[in-house]
C-alpha cells in the first residue's frame, strides 16, 4: 500500500454542506498522520489479511502473498495526479511507471513481471498530450525492464477531473522470504540514501509558484529497481522505503516506529543539491519534508554498508549515495538529526506546505 501521489496545489474544495471532520481534505493525501488514520479507518479495518507475508495492515509499499512453497507474489498500486503534467525532469507518465516499479523494488522485488495502467482523461484533452504521456510510459518501462500488460481508459467531463490521472499496478514474484519489509531495521544497521534529497518536491513547488532559481533544479523521477538490485546483491538490505509523499523525514520516522528503534542522522552527510538547498530556504520548505521520486532510503547490515554504498555509487543513478546515519537503541520510534551544530528531532511534516510570510 503506497501513498498516493497527489502533487497538486492546495485547493480546498469541500463537499456539499459537509464541513470539518466530515470531508476528505488535501491533508488526508499529504502522507502524514491524517493519511495514515484515514487508511487505517477506511481500509485496514476491512481488508487486513493475516495470511499474507506482508498484508495491508503493514502499510508497506506493497503486499507479499505466498503462492507456493518457494515463491511469493508482490503486488502494489498507485494513482498519480500532478500539476503540471510535464515538469522539469519528467512527466506524469514517467512518474506513474517509476512510482510503481519503485514500490515493487522497495519490497525487494526488482524484476517487475507485469504492470497495469489505467488512464482517466478529461474530455477536451489534446490527443497529443496523451500520446506524449504514453510514450514516456513506454520509455520508462524500457528503462526499468518492465512492461504494461493490461489497462483501462476512462473519459470524464471537464468539471469531473483535471486533465489526466493514471493508476498503475505492479506485480512481481520473489523467492519465499526474499522480500524486504520497511519494518526490518535493527540496532547497529547503517542508513544509506541513494541520491540527493528533495529534488522532485522542491523543483515542482518552485515551478508551480513561478520561481526561477536558474538551472539545476529538476525532478529526480526515475525507476530505481536496478539500483536496489545492485544493493541487494552487494549486501544485506534490512529495510527499504522510497521517500515519496512526506519525504525522507516521514519514511525514516515510519521505519523507526515500525521497527521499534531509534535513528541517528548526520545532517552534513545527507546529500542535498545546492539548488534544492537554496530554493528550499527561499521557499521556507525543508528538502527532507518533500517528495523524492528516484531515491531509496535503506537500512543495511553494518558490515555490508561500505560494499552496498560502493555498489550504489557504481551506477550513475547512485553516484551521490551516502551513509547518512545509523540505527540506535535510544529515542525509540524517533529520528534525531545532528545538524553539525546541535541535535534536534527530525519530525514528519504535517499537512500541506504553504509559502511563508518572511
Amino acid at each position, binding site marked *: 500500500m503506497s501513498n498516493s501521489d497527489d502533487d497538486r496545489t492546495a485547493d480546498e474544495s469541500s463537499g456539499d454542506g459537509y464541513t470539518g471532520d466530515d470531508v476528505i481534505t488535501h491533508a488526508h493525501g499529504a502522507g502524514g498522520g491524517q493519511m495514515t488514520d484515514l487508511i487505517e479507518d477506511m481500509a485496514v479495518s476491512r481488508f487486513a489479511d493475516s495470511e499474507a507475508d506482508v498484508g495491508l495492515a503493514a502499510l508497506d509499499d506493497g503486499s507479499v502473498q505466498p503462492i507456493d512453497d518457494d515463491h511469493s507474489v508482490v503486488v502494489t498500486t498507485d494513482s498519480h495526479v500532478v500539476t503540471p503534467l510535464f515538469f522539469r525532469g519528467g512527466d506524469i507518465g514517467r512518474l506513474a511507471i517509476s512510482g510503481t516499479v519503485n514500490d515493487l523494488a522497495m519490497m525487494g522485488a526488482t524484476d517487475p513481471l507485469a504492470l497495469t495502467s489505467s488512464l482517466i482523461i478529461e474530455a477536451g484533452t489534446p490527443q497529443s498530450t496523451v500520446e506524449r504521456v504514453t510514450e514516456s510510459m513506454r520509455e520508462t518501462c524500457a528503462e526499468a525492464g518492465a512492461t504494461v500488460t493490461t489497462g483501462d481508459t476512462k473519459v470524464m467531463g471537464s468539471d469531473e477531473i483535471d486533465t489526466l490521472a493514471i493508476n498503475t499496478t505492479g506485480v512481481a514474484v520473489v523467492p519465499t522470504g526474499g522480500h524486504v519489509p520497511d519494518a526490518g531495521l535493527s540496532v547497529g544497521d547503517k542508513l544509506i540514501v541513494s541520491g540527493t534529497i528533495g529534488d522532485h518536491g522542491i523543483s515542482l513547488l518552485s515551478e508551480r509558484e513561478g520561481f526561477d532559481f536558474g538551472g539545476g533544479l529538476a525532478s529526480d523521477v526515475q525507476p530505481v529497481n536496478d539500483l536496489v538490485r545492485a544493493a541487494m546483491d552487494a549486501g544485506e538490505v534490512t529495510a527499504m522505503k522510497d521517500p515519496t509523499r512526506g519525504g525522507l523525514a516521514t519514511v525514516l520516522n515510519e521505519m523507526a516506529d515500525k521497527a521499534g528503534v531509534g535513528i541517528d542522522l548526520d545532517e552534513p552527510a545527507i546529500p542535498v543539491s545546492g539548488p534544492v538547498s537554496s530554493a528550499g530556504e527561499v521557499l521556507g520548505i525543508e528538502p527532507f519534508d518533500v517528495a523524492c521520486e528516484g531515491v531509496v532510503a535503506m537500512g543495511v547490515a553494518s558490515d555490508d554498508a561500505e560494499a552496498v554504498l560502493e555498489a550504489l555509487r557504481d551506477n550513475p543513478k547512485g553516484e551521490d549515495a551516502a551513509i547518512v546515519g545509523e540505527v540506535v537503541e535510544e529515542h525509540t520510534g524517533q529520528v534525531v538529526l545532528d545538524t553539525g*551544530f*546541535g541535535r534536534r528531532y527530525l519530525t514528519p511534516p504535517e*499537512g500541506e506546505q504553504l509559502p511563508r510570510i518572511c
Partner: protein
Amino acid sequence: MASTADDGDGELQFRDPEKAEQLTEELESLMDDIGEPVNVMHVCGSHEQAIAKFGLRSILPDDLTVRMGPGCPVCVTNMPEVDEAVALAEEGKIVATYGDMFRVPGTEKSLADAKDEGADVRVVYSASEAAEIAAEEPDREVIFFATGFETTAAPTAAVLTADPPENFSVLSAHKYVPPAMEIVAEMPDTDVDGFLAAGHAAVITGYGLFEDFVSEYDTPAVVGGFEPIDILFALARLLEFIRDDEAGLANAYQRCVTEDGNVPAKEAMWEVFDTTSGEWRGIAEIPDANLVISDDYAHYDARERFDIDVDAGASDPLTEDCICGDIMAGKADPDECELFGEECTPQDPVGACMVSSEGTCKIWLEYGGQPDL
C-alpha cells in the same frame, strides 16, 4: 558598538561548526562569570526557527534560557482582525494574504475555512502580487489582508504609494515591534535579562531605534542575524552586557543592519501608516503598536471602503485552554500547553502559534521543541 561576527576572521563562515564550538565555549565562559541563570528573549520567529532547526538549544549552557517573545506577526494578529478578512471573503471579494495567515483561526473560522466554503481566498508572497491580482481582475474588489511587522509593512506601503489599481485595498493588521518589547519588558512576571532584537525588522528601522528602549528599561539589547553563527555571536555579546551589568546596545548583524536602517522604506512606511493602540492576540492592548492606514491613503483602506459586517459567532471552546499569550510573553514554553500536539496541530490549530512557520508552537512541533539530547 560590538564588532561584527566576522571581524578578525576575514570572511565569516555562517555555517562553520568549528566557529560555533568556539562561540559555545565563549558562552559557557561568560555564564561562569555571571554565575547565575540568565533569561534572554528574542523577538522574531525566524530566530526561533534557526535556533530549533540547527539544534542550538542542545549546545547552549544549561542555565541560559532563550525564549521567544511576541515575535510572530501572524500569532499576534487578533481574532477580530481575522474575522474582518473572513467577512470580506464571504461577501464575495477576493482576499489575498500570506500563506502563514491562511489557517489562523478567527473567532469562528479561518480564511482556509472560508475558502472551503467557496470564498475566493488567494495565497500570495507579497503585497505587490495582491495588487497584480487586482490588475488582472478589474471587475472584482481585491483586498490584501496585510500582516507582519516592519519587514512587510514597508513593502505594503511601497505598493500603496505606487498608485495600485482602484479595485485594490488593504486590510491592515500590520504591527510595530518596539512598543511590544516595552510591554513585555514591563510585565512583572516576565523576567528578561536581555533582548535579542530582530535583524529583519532592524534592516528597515535601524538599530538606533532601540537606544531609547535600552536606556529606559535598563535592559541590554543586541540586534542579531539568523544564521547559527549570527545567533551564537549575538548571544555572546548580550551575555557580555549582562556580565558587565550594562544596559548596552550592539549591532551583531552589521552586514545587513545600519544605525538608521532603510530610510526610503521607513519614509514610505510612515507616509502610509499611523500608529494606534490595539490588542495583540493573547498578550495585551499595546499602545502605538498597530499600524493603520493614514488619512492620505484612506481610499485604499478596506475598513474605510467597506462596511465590514463581522458575523463572528462562537469561538472554539478549546481556545480557553490555549496558552499562546503566555508563550508569546515569554512566560511559558509550548510543551507546557495541554493542547500542544494533541488537540492543537498545524492542520487543526487552536492557537495562532501553531499555524505560522514563525510561530513557536509550530516550530517546536516541527523540530522537536527543546530536546534533551
